């Protein structure tokens, strides 16, 4: 069967509707909510704070610790076992490395920034939504960072190339899903994972589509952060 139309009626290069909000968790130093279609992520940032056990401290740079977790009720009706598992540990690690590429870690030696990502609702692209939320939360926490970072999944279903896959497309029998994290100004790729088969040309096209797609996410991230401080800006404006 050919795949001529997307299950939710989107165009092939169209993203799901995005909602973003900064500062949703008052006790955290910075926090954010990011929703993309039916995938939603909370991120809370604490720190920089002192790091123990002491052997983990690095006198040259600070470290960033990410905890990714899907809530028990977040899936399609099947209970997700809470707590760390092989998959969530891997995802925490790749998000950590992606975020470390934009945060100025050398400004807080011997200390740690903790990022907690929780997903109340999932429909594919969770690590991407997690990165987008974490990026807003880090900025909201006043952490020095070179740039914003956002992520998006691209992929192939049958012979069609598309962006921002939902779960139906992600789990298609002849499908490839590639999460890509991109740094805003430089366009550098900070995360890229792939399984499945693609030709070289297809991958090139997909990366181009990802670069195009994240622009919209960056706009939403910026809007979310500026909305939180809108009152201050209006007070200072002419």
């Amino acid at each position, binding site marked *: 069967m050919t795949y001529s139309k997307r299950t939710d009626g989107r165009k092939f290069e169209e993203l799901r509707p995005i909602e973003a909000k900064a500062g949703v968790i008052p006790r955290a130093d910075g926090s954010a909510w990011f929703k993309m279609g039916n995938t939603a992520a909370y991120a809370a940032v604490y720190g920089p704070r002192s790091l123990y056990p002491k052997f983990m401290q690095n*006198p040259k740079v600070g470290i960033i610790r990410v905890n990714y977790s899907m809530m028990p009720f977040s899936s399609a009706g099947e209970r997700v076992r809470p707590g760390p598992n092989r998959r969530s540990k891997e995802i925490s690690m790749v998000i950590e490395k992606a975020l470390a590429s934009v945060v100025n870690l050398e400004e807080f030696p011997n200390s740690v920034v903790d990022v907690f990502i929780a997903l109340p609702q999932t429909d594919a692209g969770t690590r991407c939504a997690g990165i987008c939320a974490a990026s807003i939360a880090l900025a909201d926490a*006043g952490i020095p960072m070179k740039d914003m970072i956002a992520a998006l999944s691209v992929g192939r279903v049958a012979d069609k190339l598309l962006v921002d896959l939902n779960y139906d497309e992600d789990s298609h029998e002849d499908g490839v899903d590639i999460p890509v994290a991109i740094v805003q*100004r430089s366009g550098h790729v900070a995360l890229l994972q792939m399984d499945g088969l693609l030709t070289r040309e297809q991958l090139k096209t997909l990366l181009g589509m990802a670069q195009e797609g994240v622009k919209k996410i960056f706009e939403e991230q910026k809007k979310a952060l500026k909305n939180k*401080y809108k009152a*201050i800006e209006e*007070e*200072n404006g002419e």
Partner: protein
Amino acid sequence: MSELLVKNKSIVVPGEELASGMDFLPSFGTYRDKDIIVASRLGMVNVEGKVIKITPLSGKYNPRRGDMIIGKIVDVSYSGWRVDTNSAYPAMLSIKDATSEFINRGADLTQFFDVDDYIVASIFNITSQKLIDVTMKGPGLRKLVGGRIIQINTNKVPRIIGKQGSMISMVKDATGCKIIVGQNGLLWLTGEPKMELLVVETIKKIEDEAHMSGLTEKIKNFLEKKTGKKIEPREEVRNDDMRMNRNDEVRRER
């Protein structure tokens, strides 16, 4: 050609381009990428002549030399005390900086400060690895007894103190409470129980509305309504109120 890409006093996010060309200079919270100045943290842009800097609106306390802070003793050792500074880094208070009294070798240091005591101290040295040394030799630096401690956003401390201490001295006069504001976002106060609660409420109000203009007037009305007394603006600002505001120091240096 150099030009500013954002309006002065606008809110910017990390990665936002602030100015192009080599005529501007990047300062706090910004960096230069080739010929473009880019924001490296969330905050408000401040352009002063050629210098572009960002005034942060959020974030933890960043210790700086000369700051007067309120710290909590977390450990007592042979040679001094370890002090929590409400930042990622603890500070050391050594015996010779703590008191001018003679202390015998091996004496029990808890008779001066014990764990969980709060002190007002001043940062006199800080290294690249953020090892902090504090001293208690100086006017107003002492152990805090009684009263209550509240925590506020460090970035709003200048607003709570006000220009030359105007805001904080008004709150002190209206409530009759003693208040000490540490640059690290801890605030100590003591007075009549009812007035203590009023101070806490007032401080939260100032913190929430820190961005509003005419805030001093608003707080004055609020305090007059709550206490039922008229507040006379003080003609001469007391020295200890003035000393607290880091921004005033910067202003005077220029």
